[in-house]
């Protein structure tokens, strides 16, 4: 039940009018806002008091209430599904992934929401328990992600070794050279442990690890001056583009997701979580913003259309093409970032946080996946490997089989999310007396 309660967190909310009015109206509507450790069953009057009284905090305002913002879970769950589908060979479901309709894709959503929830959870920890404790908890989380990454790498290695031993197709003699790394496992495995050897599809977690490592610093700076922190992040992004900063990889090349560039989304997410979203609410609620976002989304859609239907290419002015392309994912092109912003702005406008559909059974699987994102992300990467394997070794590459594999993967992800949720819920029941709200912080976003 606790999960289903709404909160006072004004995430990218669109409300015109003064702030005080806004706060009280919101909270009346959403009815429950417990004071940090307060029981979820706090009555409405109590909740109103808690939020109507302005809480004096240094520079950031953490909204009261450790309840979940279901829209975050929904979209993170959706991002996980889309990432899984994007990692599989093309099939019918691929047409439902947002990368086909604009510049940005599910990775942007995932990183932004991760920044948001991580800052929300650990920002609170930093206010409540101090810098050292919060840092320690973040590092514990980093360790979990690292272990997850190594686990996935092991599975990847198993799959590749199997394929390398059997694959014999003269057509792809050159491409098979990619498996040469198996000839020097000593170097390869060590480089993988150092996060420098990252097979395709396995580069999101290393990015996440690096971003999380800097989270204590980010939150600490945000406590001091949120806007300055965001400005620094933008500066780092600009410097990255200007001087071509990157992290090198093994055996050569670079990180497929450049952390120097992608940090912007993560920090922006954190900034939104720590009060930025509310301060932006006036801009976001303006119809002008909506029109700009809509126009940009339409533009991106039209451009993307010319990729899928090359026969429309002649409609694209050459000058625009030369200015625009390539739209790099590695350095998170500013067009991608802008596309994500527009998408987010339109989404929060169209989907109010108290939309009843968020509690419907039909969205439950997505939301559950979003709530256990680290586990489900890893499972998704594994299932993508497994899906490739099934298609190649057993089922053949027919379109119908691709579809079946995708659907099966999503069902497995949802089922697993449900099991994890059930397990945590049961475990919580017996442990909640001991642990209380601090223990729940992981669950309320998990920073994952």
């Amino acid at each position, binding site marked *: 039940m606790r999960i289903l309660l709404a909160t006072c967190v004004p995430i990218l909310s669109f409300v015109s009018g003064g702030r005080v009015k806004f706060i009280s109206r919101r909270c009346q509507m959403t009815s429950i806002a417990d004071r940090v450790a307060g029981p979820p069953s706090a009555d409405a009057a109590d909740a109103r008091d808690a939020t109507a009284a302005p809480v004096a905090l240094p520079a950031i305002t953490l909204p009261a209430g450790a309840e979940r913002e279901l829209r975050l879970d929904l979209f993170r769950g959706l991002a996980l599904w889309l990432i899984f589908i994007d*990692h599989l*060979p*093309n099939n019918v479901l691929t047409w439902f992934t947002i990368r086909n309709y604009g510049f940005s894709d599910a990775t942007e959503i995932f990183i932004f929401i991760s920044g948001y929830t991580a800052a929300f959870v650990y920002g609170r920890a930093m206010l409540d328990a101090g810098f050292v404790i919060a840092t320690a908890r973040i590092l514990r989380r980093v360790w979990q992600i690292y272990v997850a990454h190594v686990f996935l790498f092991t599975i*990847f290695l198993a799959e*590749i070794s199997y*394929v390398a031993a*059997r*694959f*014999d*197709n*003269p*057509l*792809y*003699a*050159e*491409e098979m*050279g*990619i*498996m040469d790394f198996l000839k020097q496992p000593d170097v390869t495995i060590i480089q993988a442990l150092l996060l420098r050897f990252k*097979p*395709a599809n396995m580069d999101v977690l290393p990015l996440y690890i690096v971003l999380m490592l800097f989270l204590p610093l980010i939150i600490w700076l945000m406590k001091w001056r949120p806007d300055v922190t965001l400005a620094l992040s933008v500066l780092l992004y600009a410097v990255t583009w200007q001087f*071509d900063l990157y992290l090198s*990889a093994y*055996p*050569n*090349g*670079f990180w*497929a997701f450049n952390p120097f560039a992608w940090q912007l989304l993560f920090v922006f997410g954190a900034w939104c979580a720590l009060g930025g979203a509310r301060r932006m609410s006036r801009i976001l609620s303006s*119809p002008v913003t*909506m*029109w700009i976002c*809509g126009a940009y989304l*339409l533009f991106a*859609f*039209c451009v993307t*259309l010319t990729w899928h*239907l*090359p*026969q*429309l290419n*002649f409609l694209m002015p*050459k000058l625009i093409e*030369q200015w625009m*392309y*390539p*739209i*790099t994912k*590695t350095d998170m092109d500013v067009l991608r970032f802008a596309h994500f912003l527009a998408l987010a702005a339109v989404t929060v*406008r*169209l989907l109010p946080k108290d939309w009843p559909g968020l509690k419907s059974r039909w969205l439950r699987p997505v939301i559950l996946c979003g709530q256990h994102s680290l586990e489900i992300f890893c499972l998704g990467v594994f299932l*993508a*490997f497994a899906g*490739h394997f099934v*298609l*190649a*070794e057993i089922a*053949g*590459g*027919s*379109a119908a089989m691709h579809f079946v594999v995708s659907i099966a993967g999503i069902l497995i992800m949802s089922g697993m999310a449900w099991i994890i949720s059930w397990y945590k819920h049961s475990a919580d029941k017996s442990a909640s007396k001991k642990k209380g709200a601090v223990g729940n912080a992981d669950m309320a976003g998990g920073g994952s």
Partner: protein
Amino acid sequence: MKSNPLALLGLTVLAGFLAVAPARAQDAPARTQDAPANCEVPAYLLTTESTLPKVENALKSGGPLDILVVGSRSSTITASEASAYPARLQAMLKQMLPKVTINVSVELQVKKTAEEVATGLVKLVEVKKPTLVIWQTGTYDAMRSVDPEDFRAAVGDGVTALKEAGAEVVLMNLQYSPRTESMISAPPYLDNMRVVAQQYDVPLFDRFAIMRHWNDTGDFDLFSPSHGLDLAKRVHDCLGRALAKFVIEAARVDPAQQN
């Protein structure tokens, strides 16, 4: 009321999408009599805005047309070079333009990045003096995950060098290789080759899209690990066929008039 403009926008987008859908259906595969039934290529994959005036001249004056294919290992089939696409290209061109003298030679640059190949291109052209260079590249760079920016610069340099040496250029991108998709990240290299082709106004033979089309339509099962030499030969035959059409199309020559 507030959401009206957005609803309108949504409808517009939807309408636009629906309007385009039939267009897509119409110009699917352009059927030609001479292609074997199992490897048709949609017309849009064989058209290009860029032209090859020198090739056009050579074809119209009866030759000779010297074509040099510079490529990596995917430009050949081990132990069966005569079945690889360069040889098939020559055969197809001769079949389509029987009156023209056409020579296709191959220069394999195995395990070299675009940058390494680009530096040697001028020498090759000086020796062989081809009218047209078909440069197949990108695979090794993708496998080594070379910085896409560097890759783009290298391909651009190579194209410039070839043009300055007096040859015309057709770029050819990577193979569609579904089985190694989880290991080799092709998209950045495909994108950058497209950018270079646009920037320098050279035709790009989109081998990746063509092979993916064959796989999607079921002409070839490129997924299965157990195919032998036969599949490779058939795919290369079809690639040579498509490439011949593409070169003739880029040269703006109508084979029917030449015969």
